[in-house]
C-alpha cells in the first residue's frame, strides 16, 4: 500500500493513511446506521420486533375488510342529484326520547361505574360539557330509584389532575366487604398516556355520592412493558380470587390480537400483573370496555361478580374498536391462573360469527350486579346514526339503551338472554289487545292513537297448514343458509314463510316506516330457521342518515311460539326476539312519520303463509328525567 513517492518522507506517512481509511469506513458505518434509524423511527409505533411488510399487508386486509363493512353504512342514499334533506327544528326536536336516559344536552358515550347504593341507582357516563360531538370528556352523573326515572346530578369528576387532564375516561365500581365503594377509571394523562386511577366517594354518608375524591397516589397502573401507551383502558369491576385478593381485567391489543390483561391487588393501590392473559383472540383488534362476570347455569337471578363454582359459567365480553360491535362468549374461568376459555372456540369473543348482545347500534356496554334485586343489569351506549350537523343543530348526541337484565339461557345452554328491566312497566299507560289473522301480502293498520312511545308484546304463529304445505313442497327452495337480515334485501323481499311483523314509526302511506320482523326460512336439512330483523332502509327519506338492515338468526326451540317485544321511543326502536335471545337496537330519523302522523302497522309479506298475531300495545309515559334540583331529588326519594 505504501506509495513509493512517499517513502522518502519515512514510515510516519503510512499510519495516517491507514488511519484515514479506518476513519472513512467508520464514518460509512455510522452513516448507514443513522440512515437506518432515521427512516425506521416513523414505523416503529406499532410493530416492535415484527416484520414490517407482513404487518402492513395484514393491516391492509383488515382495513379493507372493516372498511367494506362500514362503507355501505355511510354511502349517501341517492346520487348527487338527490336534493339535500333540510331538517327543521320541529323534526329534530321530535327525535329526543321520552323515557331513555340522556343528558339535557351535548354528547354522551360509554356508561361508567353503574351501581346501587343506599337506596339509589347511580349512573355515570362519558360526557362532553362543551359540544355535541366527542371531546373534553368528564364523568356525568345521575340517580334513580328504579333505573327509569332519573334526576341529573352535577358532574362527578372533571379532568383536573395531570393523570386525567386529557380525559376522565371509562371505569367501573367495586364494592368492598364493608359496603364502601372504590372506582377505577382510565385517565388520559397530560402526555396522552392511558393510565388507571383510583377514586372514591368523598362522603360515604351521602346517598347521592355527589362528590368524589381521587387517590393522591394516582395513577395506580400505567401501561406495562409491551403494551402501547394508548392501548390500555377501561378497567373492570374487581372480583375476589380464591386467595382472597381482588382481581381486575383491562382490555388491550398486541398488534391485531385483542387481549385482556389481568391484575391482582389487595388494596386497589398496588397491583401485580399476572403473566397470563384472561384471554386473547387473534385478528380482533383493540378490546375496549371489557366485561367479565359469572352467570348461573340453572337459576334466573344475577350473580355478584365474585361468585364462582360448578353451577356457574363466566362471560367474557369486549367492545371491538375495529367494527364497533360488542361481542361476548360463554366459557369457563380458571381462578388459579386467571384465564378463561370459551365453550365454543369457533365463536370466540370478537370473531365475526360470535354472539352479540345486540345486532344493531349498541356499543361500550357495561353490566353491574344489582344487589338490591339480585340481578345483573346491562347498560349500553346507543350513538346517533345521523350527520354531525344535525347533532350540532339539535344540540345533543347519543342515548343509553333501556337497562336490561342479563341471564344465561338455560334452555339453549349457549347464549345469554336480555330483557328490559321490569320497572319499565311503570311507564305503561293505556293498552289495547289484538288477535288478528293476517293473510299473505297484507298490511293492517293498528289503531292505537299516538305511536311514538309504545311498548308492544306480540306472539306469532304461522298457520299449521301453510307450514306443512311449504315444508312438504320440494320446489320451495331451501334458503336459510343464504339468508341474512343485512344482505337479503329487507322487508319488501317476500319469502314463503316471511317476513312478517310490525312496521313502526310509519306514515299512513308507508312512505316512511321501520319494519321489525321475523323471517322464517327452510334450511337444506328441511328444518326451519328463524331470523329476526329490523329494516331501517325506509325509516326516513333523508339522505344524510345511516339506514342499515340489522338482525340475526334467533334460536326457536320446539313448541315455542314466535315472540317479539318492541319499545318505540321517538328516534330509538329496541326489539327483542324470543324473549331477548336476539336483540336489535336501531336509531331512526323519520321526517314525516313524526308526532301525530306516526302510525303502527302489522304486516305479513310472506308469499304463501297466513300468520296469526296476538299482541298488546301500551302507550308509554315519559320518564320525566329532571335536571338537578333538591326538589326533584326529594320527589324521587319519596317513590
Amino acid at each position: 500500500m505504501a506509495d513509493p513517492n512517499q517513502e522518502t518522507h519515512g514510515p510516519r506517512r503510512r499510519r495516517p493513511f491507514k488511519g484515514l481509511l479506518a476513519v472513512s469506513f467508520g464514518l460509512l458505518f455510522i452513516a448507514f446506521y443513522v440512515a437506518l434509524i432515521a427512516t425506521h423511527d416513523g414505523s416503529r409505533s406499532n410493530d416492535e420486533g415484527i416484520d414490517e411488510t407482513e404487518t402492513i399487508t395484514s393491516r391492509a386486509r383488515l382495513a379493507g375488510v372493516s372498511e367494506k363493512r362500514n362503507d355501505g353504512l355511510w354511502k349517501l342514499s341517492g346520487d348527487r342529484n338527490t336534493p339535500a334533506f333540510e331538517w327543521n327544528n320541529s323534526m329534530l326536536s321530535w327525535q329526543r326520547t321520552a323515557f331513555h336516559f340522556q343528558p339535557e344536552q351535548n354528547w354522551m358515550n360509554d356508561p361508567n361505574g353503574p351501581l346501587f347504593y343506599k337506596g339509589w341507582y347511580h349512573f355515570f357516563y362519558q360526557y362532553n360539557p362543551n359540544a355535541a360531538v366527542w371531546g373534553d370528556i368528564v364523568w356525568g352523573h345521575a340517580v334513580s330509584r328504579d333505573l327509569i326515572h332519573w334526576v341529573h346530578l352535577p358532574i362527578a369528576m372533571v379532568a383536573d389532575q395531570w393523570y386525567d387532564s386529557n380525559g376522565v375516561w371509562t371505569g367501573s365500581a367495586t364494592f368492598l366487604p364493608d359496603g364502601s365503594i372504590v372506582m377505577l377509571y382510565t385517565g388520559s394523562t397530560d402526555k396522552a398516556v392511558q393510565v388507571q386511577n383510583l377514586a372514591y366517594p368523598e362522603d360515604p354518608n351521602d346517598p347521592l355520592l355527589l362528590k368524589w375524591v381521587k387517590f393522591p397516589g394516582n395513577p395506580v397502573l400505567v401501561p406495562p412493558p409491551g403494551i402501547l401507551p394508548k392501548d390500555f383502558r377501561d378497567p373492570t369491576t374487581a372480583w375476589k380470587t380464591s386467595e382472597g385478593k381482588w382481581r381486575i381485567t383491562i382490555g388491550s391489543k398486541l398488534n391485531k390480537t385483542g387481549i385482556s390483561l389481568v391484575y391482582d391487588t389487595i388494596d386497589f393501590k398496588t397491583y401485580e400483573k399476572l403473566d397470563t392473559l384472561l384471554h386473547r383472540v387473534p385478528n380482533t383488534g383493540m378490546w375496549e370496555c371489557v366485561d367479565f362476570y359469572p352467570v348461573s347455569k340453572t337459576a334466573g337471578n344475577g350473580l355478584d361478580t365474585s361468585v364462582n363454582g360448578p353451577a356457574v359459567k363466566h362471560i367474557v365480553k369486549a367492545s371491538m374498536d375495529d367494527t364497533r360491535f360488542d361481542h361476548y362468549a360463554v366459557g369457563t374461568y380458571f381462578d388459579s391462573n386467571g384465564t378463561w376459555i370459551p365453550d365454543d372456540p369457533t365463536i370466540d369473543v370478537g370473531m365475526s360469527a360470535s354472539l352479540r348482545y345486540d345486532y344493531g347500534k349498541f356499543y361500550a356496554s357495561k353490566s353491574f350486579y344489582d344487589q338490591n334485586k339480585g340481578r345483573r343489569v346491562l347498560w349500553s351506549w346507543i350513538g346517533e346514526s345521523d350527520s354531525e350537523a344535525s347533532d350540532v343543530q339539535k344540540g345533543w348526541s347519543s342515548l343509553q339503551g333501556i337497562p336490561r337484565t342479563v341471564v344465561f339461557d338455560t334452555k339453549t345452554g349457549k347464549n345469554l338472554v336480555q330483557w328490559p328491566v321490569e320497572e319499565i312497566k311503570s311507564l305503561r299507560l293505556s293498552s289495547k289487545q289484538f288477535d288478528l289473522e293476517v293473510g299473505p301480502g297484507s298490511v293492517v293498520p293498528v289503531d292505537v292513537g299516538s305511536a311514538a312511545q309504545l311498548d308492544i308484546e306480540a306472539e306469532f304463529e304461522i298457520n299449521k297448514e301453510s307450514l306443512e304445505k311449504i315444508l312438504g313442497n320440494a320446489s320451495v327452495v331451501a334458503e336459510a343458509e343464504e339468508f341474512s337480515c343485512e344482505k337479503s334485501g329487507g322487508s319488501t323481499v317476500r319469502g314463503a314463510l316471511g317476513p312478517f311483523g310490525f312496521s313502526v314509526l310509519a306514515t299512513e302511506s308507508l312512505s316512511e316506516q321501520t319494519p321489525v320482523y321475523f323471517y322464517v326460512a327452510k334450511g337444506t336439512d328441511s328444518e326451519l330457521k328463524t331470523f329476526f330483523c329490523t329494516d331501517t332502509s325506509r325509516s326516513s327519506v333523508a339522505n344524510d342518515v345511516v339506514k342499515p338492515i340489522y338482525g340475526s338468526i334467533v334460536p326457536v326451540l320446539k313448541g315455542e311460539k314466535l315472540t317479539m317485544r318492541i319499545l318505540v321511543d321517538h328516534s330509538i326502536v329496541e326489539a327483542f326476539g324470543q324473549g331477548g335471545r336476539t336483540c336489535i337496537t336501531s336509531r331512526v330519523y323519520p321526517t314525516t312519520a313524526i308526532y301525530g302522523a306516526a302510525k303502527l302497522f302489522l304486516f305479513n309479506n310472506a308469499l304463501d303463509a297466513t300468520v296469526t298475531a296476538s299482541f298488546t300495545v301500551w302507550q308509554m309515559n315519559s320518564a320525566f328525567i329532571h335536571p338537578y334540583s333538591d326538589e326533584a331529588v326529594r320527589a324521587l326519594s319519596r317513590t
Partner: protein
Amino acid sequence: MKMMMMMKVMMMVMVMVMVMVMVSEGSIIEQTCKETQDFNLCVSLLNSDPRGSSADTSGLALILIDKIKGLTTKTLNEINGLYKKRPELKRALDECSRRYKTILNADVPEAIEAISKGVPKFGEDGVIDAGVEASVCEGGFKGKSPLTSLTKSMQKISNVTRAIVRMLL
C-alpha cells in the same frame, strides 16, 4: 494524490448509500399511502407538508386532517363569494355554509383530539362525517352545483384520511 482520490470515492460511496437507504425506506409515506384508495393524492398531500417525512401514522393522519381543515376554510370562502355572484342559490348556499361550519367546528376538532389521545374511532367518525357533510351540501344544488370540484376533493381526502385513521384502530 491517490489518498485524496480514495477519500473522495469513500465519501461518494457513503453519500450514495445513505441516499439509497433513505429513498427505499423513505416512504413511510409511500408504504402508508399504498393502503389507501388514492395513492397519488395521499402521497402528494403528505409530501406537501414538511412534517410528513418524519411523521408516524398518527402524525400522517393529523396532517391530512389539517388538509381537511384547509379545504373546509377554502370552501367556506368560496361559498361566501357565491352569495353575491349567484344570489338565486341562497338556500343551497345557506345549507352548505351550515354543513361546512360543522366540519370546521365539530368534525375537525373531534378528529384531532381523538387521534392525539389514542381513541381513533372518534377520529374516524369525524372524518367520515366531513365527507357526508360535503356530499349533502353538493346535493342541495340539484345537479347544478358550483362547488363540485371542491366537493370531490373533500370526498377523496376524507376517504384517504379514513383509511389511515383505521390503521390506528
